[in-house]
């Protein structure tokens, strides 16, 4: 599968996990440039829960602790959905 196809599938998975796992279903559909904290208004505790929901969805361990720790070290403390997609593509 090509990278764009994989990415759009992952984005679909993410939209579903956000809706069913976290109860987030924004009016504007979630896009690669959507920001986790600034746009979806989520908190870091939601990122922890999201990580767990995604591991359940894909049935495998993902290095989410690392991702969260990197997030904690960022000045802006935010990440885009595109970054999340890239992280998943790399680790699935």
């Amino acid at each position, binding site marked *: 599968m090509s990278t764009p196809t994989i990415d759009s599938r992952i984005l679909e998975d993410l939209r579903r996990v956000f809706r069913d796992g976290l109860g987030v279903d924004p009016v504007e559909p979630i896009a690669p440039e959507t920001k986790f904290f600034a746009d979806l208004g989520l*908190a*870091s505790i939601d*990122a*922890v829960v999201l990580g767990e*929901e995604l591991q359940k969805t894909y049935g495998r361990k993902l290095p989410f*602790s690392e991702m*969260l720790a990197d997030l*904690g070290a960022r000045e802006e403390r935010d990440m885009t959905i595109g970054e999340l997609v890239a992280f998943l593509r790399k680790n699935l």
Partner: protein
Amino acid sequence: MPRTTANGLTFHYQQSGDGPDVVLIHGLTGDLSIWFLSRTVSALAENFRATAYDLRGHGYTDAPETGYTSLDHARDLLALLDVLEIRRARLVGHSFGAVIAAHAAVLAPERVDALILSDPYFPSLRHLEDLSRWGHWQNFRREAEEAGVSLSADTWYDLTTFFDQVLHLDDQRLLAFRRAVGLPGLNRVLRLARTTCGADSKLEAGLGAESIARIAVPCLALYGEHSPFLSTADYLMENLPQCEGRRVPGAQHRAPEEAPEAFVAAVREFLENLGPVARRETCT
């Protein structure tokens, strides 16, 4: 997400790793994510089974209207250990989480192998601290002011006033506050503000100075180099039978956020150098 019922409430918790049990307890208005963002969970999971949970009123745990003293929280913790079948644990608490850890060690010393007290201030030791050193509160006030919440300059870390103000914000200020903390953040603060958390957390609730001084398990008083509570740190080192002290360079009151690497290194070093059931004889 893993949830379980303990003490009549549903708790959200996360577990990672294998080995002796370490339980991580966050502070007031926080949640368990602090242990992930600071890399504490992944570091400890290499040698321990690390369990982090959201306190009552916080994160994804239930928020009953009342019952927010350190005694209530310590009973929650012991009930949670029961349902998770954790017989004994090393407790790591930050800020009020450390007060809860200490209270649990007083209630059930046989279940606590060791304690890391990260920057607590104890209601019963309040007389030790000098209000003018309370830079953290001044910072908090400034942040709150920018978010539309006015707090008095001459009160101590006053959650009651803070909660009261947040509950009575006019629309414009509420919008500013929402912008500053995000909608879920706002909703969580409002949920906690409607409970007795603010007032309850100022109460001794049975954890007097004498009880604290009798905590005999190995203990690390881990304080930020610029913590407002260094008199409490000194008190703990002088009065607890097995308490050593350590400062986190560059940190004020929130070492897990302000200096996560140094914080985690100190936590690991202390926990990994404890024998499985060893009790050290000396007090540094």
